[in-house]
């Protein structure tokens, strides 16, 4: 059994196709959608937690890639720029999953990519704009 948080990037040409249906029906994968968006250029972004048997998981990913959907691990999408961070902590009360958290009593900010659900609230809550979204 493997479980990963991933980001699916859909080009405009395939955005209307029912991929999740196939992931469930053909590959027996468990899906938890965290965030979905279609931009004005009709490109889609889907953040989800995907779990299943290792072989099925890999086949499912292969299926997506073969249809032109790009898959990227979530932790590569939200990047905390430690150098830019001023350790002010404004993000830590906004982050809903405590992925951005304050270590006490040192009062330093840390980012745990595994807890991140890429909701993006921190991007604008950070006064120094130290959290970046890379798609």
């Amino acid at each position: 059994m493997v479980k990963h948080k991933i980001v699916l990037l859909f080009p405009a040409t395939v955005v209307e196709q029912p991929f999740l249906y196939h992931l469930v029906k053909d590959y027996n994968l468990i899906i938890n959608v965290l965030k979905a968006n279609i931009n004005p250029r009709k490109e889609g972004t889907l953040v989800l937690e995907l779990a299943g048997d290792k072989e099925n998981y890999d086949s499912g990913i292969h299926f997506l890639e073969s249809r032109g959907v790009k898959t990227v691990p979530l932790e590569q999408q939200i990047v905390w720029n430690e150098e830019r961070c001023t350790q002010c902590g404004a993000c830590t009360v906004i982050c809903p999953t405590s992925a951005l958290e304050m270590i006490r009593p040192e009062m330093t900010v840390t980012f745990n990519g595994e807890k991140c659900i890429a909701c993006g609230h921190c991007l604008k809550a950070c006064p120094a704009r130290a959290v970046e979204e890379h798609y």
Partner: protein
Amino acid sequence: MKVNRTYDEINERIKKGEAVVMTAEEIIPFVEEKGLEQAAREVDVVTTGTFGPMCSSGAFLNLGHPMPRMRMSEIYLNGVNAYGGIAAVDAYLGATEIPKTDPANTNFPGEFNYGGGHVIEDLIAGKEVYLEAYSYGTDCYPRKKLGTYIKLEDMNEAFMFNSRNAYQNYNVAVNLSEKTLYTYMGILKPNLGNANYSTSGQLSPLFNDPLLRTTGIGTRIFLGGTEGYVSWYGTQHNPSVNRSETGAPRTPSGTLSVIGDMKQMDAAWIRGVSFLGYGVSLMVGIGIPIPILNEEILRSAAVKDEELFAPVVDYSQGYPYGRGGPLGEVSYAQLKSGTIVIHDKEVPTAPLSSYPKAKEIAEILKSWIKEGQFLLTEPVEQLPSADSGKKLSPMKIRSRGEEN
């Protein structure tokens, strides 16, 4: 008092490399262990630090004379307006100014990604910025417009002159309403979703010199990575407030106006910041040394978070409309623990002012003094303190001739 040290004695020891210097954090266990009198005998200087958003900041710039000459009356740096209502090529760039093209809060909440604070940071970082200026033209200053790239090193003078920094204590901001608030204290989630505060507590400069005994006009300080000076008391300086037995104010109180050479500053300690739905500001790094002249001064400098209190203020009604008073008081130790209790609810806290950076500033200032590079200055004049009667007055909107 049994210990009685002078500025000259301290400076002699600094010059010889013999001064004993501790940060405002290190001094706490030291005084607890040695006792006040013995600690005062051993320690010459305590260093403090703060690194937080300080909106009343900005810089005087002399941009240099182009040929033909120009009396710049409208000036933009990377699109951000700098005030030109002073001499020909002088300008004042304020930290909170936003570009003329910024949509501000028309699409609420506005992002405010770039502004005066960011231009100041870019200049200090050595980056080129685009200067655009307009004039009506005169016989002595014929040029009417200009566009050029410019760097900090190209300017004749550039000094930061901040009219209100280093606030001695500040509100803890919360939100009692049912909608999210976007404030200069950050995003405040509805129904007491979070509590944001903004001082470095036991490391904060004016919390360690609560009655302004040693911090005065002319005091040499750490400002933005270099030496700066206290030039005056800051705007909204309000020393006549309720205080603890230790002398520490229990509400926002004293402020400082500070000055320093921008050309010597380091962009690590001067950072442009953006507050969603509010605007831009500047995070400023300040550290003030406290000469341990006697036990009383040391007692104040050894203050700890447990002894410092801040008022909790609602930013939905209390602050903007003046409705209802503070919701209570909390100590900085409680704030730093991560949660405070308001109206029986546990509310998570965030500092806005960076404690680790404040600590780093106190450490840097300590090393400058220990290495003999930084001498202490006796104030040329004291700042108004608790006994001055100076108060902060609200504005009364009135018609012509009406008495206040």
